[in-house]
C-alpha cells in the first residue's frame, strides 16, 4: 500500500466534512467516525506494509518529494494512529458532532502528523510542521469562549511561529550550503559543509524542535496549552503532538548530524536533563491537576530527549519505548483527570476529595497510569526507564541517569498527593455525575495497552522490533540506502 494514503485519508476527511455540512448535515457524525476508522486503518496498513520509499510524482528522490517508511516511522505511525483514534473517540463523547470545524482541524492535524512521520524531505517536513502547528494552536483554543484557551492558544502560536522560523533558518542554511533538500542526500553531503554553517544548521533545527516539543527553554507554552485545552485535546497534545516533534528530533539528529562528532548529543543530554528536573520540580508545586500533568509531560519530554542524547541504538529504542509508554499513560491520566475535574467542577487537587467512592474504576486507572509514569515496577514506565538508564550508563551519562532516577521519587511524591486526595473522605458529594462510557472504555483500553507494553521486553517480536528501530536509526545507512536505491 502506498504510504501517501496515510496522509491523504485524513486530508480527504478534512476536505469533505465541510461539504457534508453544506449538503448533507445528517451525515456529518457518521462520516467523522468512518473517516476516523479509515485513517487509523490506513495508517496501520502502511505501518504493516514494511519498509519502502516512494517518490511523489514518480520522480527520482533528488527531484521529487520522498515518503519513507522505515522502522522508526512505522513505530510512530502506530503511535499516532492509536493516539488519534483514542482522542477522536473521547472527543465525540465530550463534544458531540456539533463543532464540525473542530473535527476538520483534528483531521488536518492527523494528516500533518502522518506527513511529518513519513516525509523524507526537509522542506516538506517544515510545511507539515506548519499545518500541524496551526491546527494545534486552534484545537488548543477551542472552545473560543474560554479565555484561558485563547490565551494559551495565542502563546502557543507565538512560540510555535518563532520555532518554525528557526526551523526555516536551519533548512535555509542547509539548502544554502548544499543545494539539496532530500534528507537522505543531505545526510551524505551536509557533513562536508563548513563548520560554522553546520553549527548554525544544527543549532537552529534543534532549538526549533525544542520549542515544538516543549523542551526547556521552549517549554513555556506547554503547561498553559495542555492545561487550558479541553480534555480530549490535552490527551492528544500530550500523547501524540509532543511525540511527533520528538520523532523529528530523533530523525534529524541521527540522520543529518549523527557523525558530527557527537556534540549535538551533548546538547541534547544537557537540555534533556534540565527539562527533566524543571518539569518535575514545577509539577511538584502545582495545585491544578491538569497543570500538574502538563509539567509532568515536560519532565517526560526531558526523559525522552535524554534517551536521544545517549546517541546509541539502545538510547533510541528506549526513547521510542518511552514515547509509547508515556502516550498510553498520559492520555489515560488526562482523560481520567478531565472526568474527575468535571465531577467536582474544579481542577484544584484540594477540591478533588472523595472521588474514589464516586468513581472507583477511574481512580484506580489513574493510580495505575500514575504508577506507570512514575516508574513503579513492573509497569511499562519502569521498563522503559530501565532501558534508558542502561543506555545512559553505557554512554557514561551519569548525571542525566541520576536525574531520571531522582525524578522517579519526585513524581511519585506529586502523584501521591493527587491520589491521596482522591482516596481521602469528602465533606460533600460531587455535584456532577455524568456517565462516560466511551471515555471509560478508552481508559480501560489504554490501561490494557500499558500492560501489554510492560510485557514488551519479554515478547520476542516486540523486543526485536524495538531493538531494530534503534539499530536502524542510529546508523542511518539503512535509511539512506532505502531512499537512494
Amino acid at each position, binding site marked *: 500500500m502506498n504510504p501517501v494514503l496515510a496522509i491523504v485519508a485524513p486530508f480527504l476527511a478534512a476536505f469533505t466534512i465541510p461539504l457534508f455540512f453544506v449538503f448533507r448535515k445528517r451525515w456529518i457524525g457518521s462520516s467523522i467516525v468512518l473517516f476516523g476508522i479509515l485513517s487509523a486503518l490506513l495508517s496501520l496498513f502502511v505501518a504493516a506494509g514494511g519498509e519502502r520509499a516512494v517518490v511523489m510524482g514518480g520522480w527520482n528522490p533528488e527531484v521529487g518529494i520522498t515518503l519513507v517508511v522505515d522502522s522508526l516511522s512505522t513505530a510512530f505511525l502506530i503511535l499516532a494512529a492509536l493516539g488519534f483514534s483514542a482522542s477522536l473517540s473521547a472527543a465525540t463523547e465530550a463534544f458531540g458532532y456539533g463543532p464540525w470545524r473542530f473535527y476538520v482541524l483534528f483531521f488536518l492535524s492527523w494528516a500533518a502528523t502522518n506527513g511529518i512521520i513519513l516525509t523524507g524531505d526537509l*522542506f516538506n517536513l*517544515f*510545511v507539515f510542521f*506548519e499545518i500541524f502547528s*496551526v491546527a494545534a*494552536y*486552534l484545537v488548543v*483554543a477551542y472552545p*473560543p469562549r474560554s*479565555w*484561558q484557551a*485563547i*490565551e*494559551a*492558544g*495565542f*502563546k502557543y*502560536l*507565538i512560540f510555535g*511561529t*518563532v520555532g*518554525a*522560523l528557526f526551523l*526555516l*533558518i536551519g533548512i*535555509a542554511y542547509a*539548502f*544554502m550550503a548544499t*543545494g539539496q*533538500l532530500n534528507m537522505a542526500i543531505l545526510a551524505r553531503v551536509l557533513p562536508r559543509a563548513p563548520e560554522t554553517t553546520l553549527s548554525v544548521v544544527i543549532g537552529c533545527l534543534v532549538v526549533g524542535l525544542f520549542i515544538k516539543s516543549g523542551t526547556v527553554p521552549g517549554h513555556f507554552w506547554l*503547561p*498553559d496549552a495542555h*492545561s*487550558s485545552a479541553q480534555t480530549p485535546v490535552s490527551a492528544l497534545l500530550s500523547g501524540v503532538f509532543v511525540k511527533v516533534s520528538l520523532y523529528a528530533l530523533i530523525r534529524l539528529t541521527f540522520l543529518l548530524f549523527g557523525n558530527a562528532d557527537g556534540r549535538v548529543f551533548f546538547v541534547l543530554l544537557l537540555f534533556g536533563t534540565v527539562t527533566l528536573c524543571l518539569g518535575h520540580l514545577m509539577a511538584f*508545586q*502545582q495545585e491544578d491537576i491538569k497543570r500538574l500533568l502538563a509539567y509532568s509531560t515536560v519532565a517526560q519530554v526531558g526523559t525522552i530527549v535524554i534517551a536521544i542524547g545517549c546517541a546509541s541504538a539502545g538510547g533510541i529504542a528506549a526513547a521510542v519505548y518511552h514515547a509509547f509508554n508515556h502516550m498510553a499513560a498520559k492520555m489515560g491520566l488526562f482523560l481520567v483527570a478531565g472526568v474527575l475535574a468535571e465531577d467536582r467542577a474544579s481542577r484544584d487537587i484540594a477540591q478533588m476529595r472523595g472521588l474514589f467512592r464516586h468513581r472507583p474504576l477511574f481512580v484506580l486507572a489513574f493510580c495505575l497510569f500514575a504508577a506507570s509514569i512514575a516508574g513503579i515496577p513492573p509497569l511499562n514506565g519502569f521498563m522503559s526507564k530501565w532501558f534508558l538508564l542502561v543506555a545512559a550508563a553505557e554512554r557514561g551519562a551519569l548525571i542525566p541517569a541520576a536525574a531520571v532516577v531522582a525524578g522517579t521519587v519526585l513524581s511519585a511524591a506529586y502523584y501521591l498527593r493527587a491520589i491521596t486526595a482522591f482516596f481521602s473522605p469528602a465533606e460533600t458529594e460531587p455535584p456532577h455525575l455524568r456517565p462516560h462510557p466511551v471515555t471509560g472504555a478508552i481508559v480501560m483500553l489504554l490501561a490494557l495497552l500499558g500492560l501489554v507494553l510492560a510485557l514488551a521486553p519479554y515478547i520476542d517480536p516486540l523486543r526485536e522490533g524495538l531493538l531494530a528501530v534503534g539499530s536502524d536509526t542510529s546508523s542511518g545507512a539503512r535509511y539512506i540506502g532505502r531512499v537512494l536505491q
Partner: protein
Amino acid sequence: MLPISYGTAIIVFCIGLYTILSKRNLFKTVIGLSLMEGGVLMLITSSGYVPGGVPALLPFAGGEPVNPLPHSFTLTAIVIGAADVALALAFIIKIHRRYGTVDIDKIRGLRG
C-alpha cells in the same frame, strides 16, 4: 553583491527579533514575526542568485536562469507566513475582547 544581500536579510531578521523582544504591543510582536520571516525568505531567495541570471521562464532568453528552487519554496513559505499572521491577528482580536488591552506584559492570566 551577494554579501550585501545576505547581510540585509540577516539585519532584517535581527530587527524583527529586536521588535519582538522589546515591544510590548501585540501588533508589533506580529510585525516582528513578519519581519523575521521576511529576513529568512530574503536569505533563501539570495541563495538562488546567479550572476547575470534571467528569470526561470522557458525559453531562457539570453543567459543562464537563476535557481528556481528557492523561489518555489519562498512562495510556499510566504503563504504559510501569511496564514500565521492572519491567525495571530485573529487571536489578538479575541484577546483584546477579554483583557481590553494589547499590552503583552498585561496578558498574563496563565503563569506559574
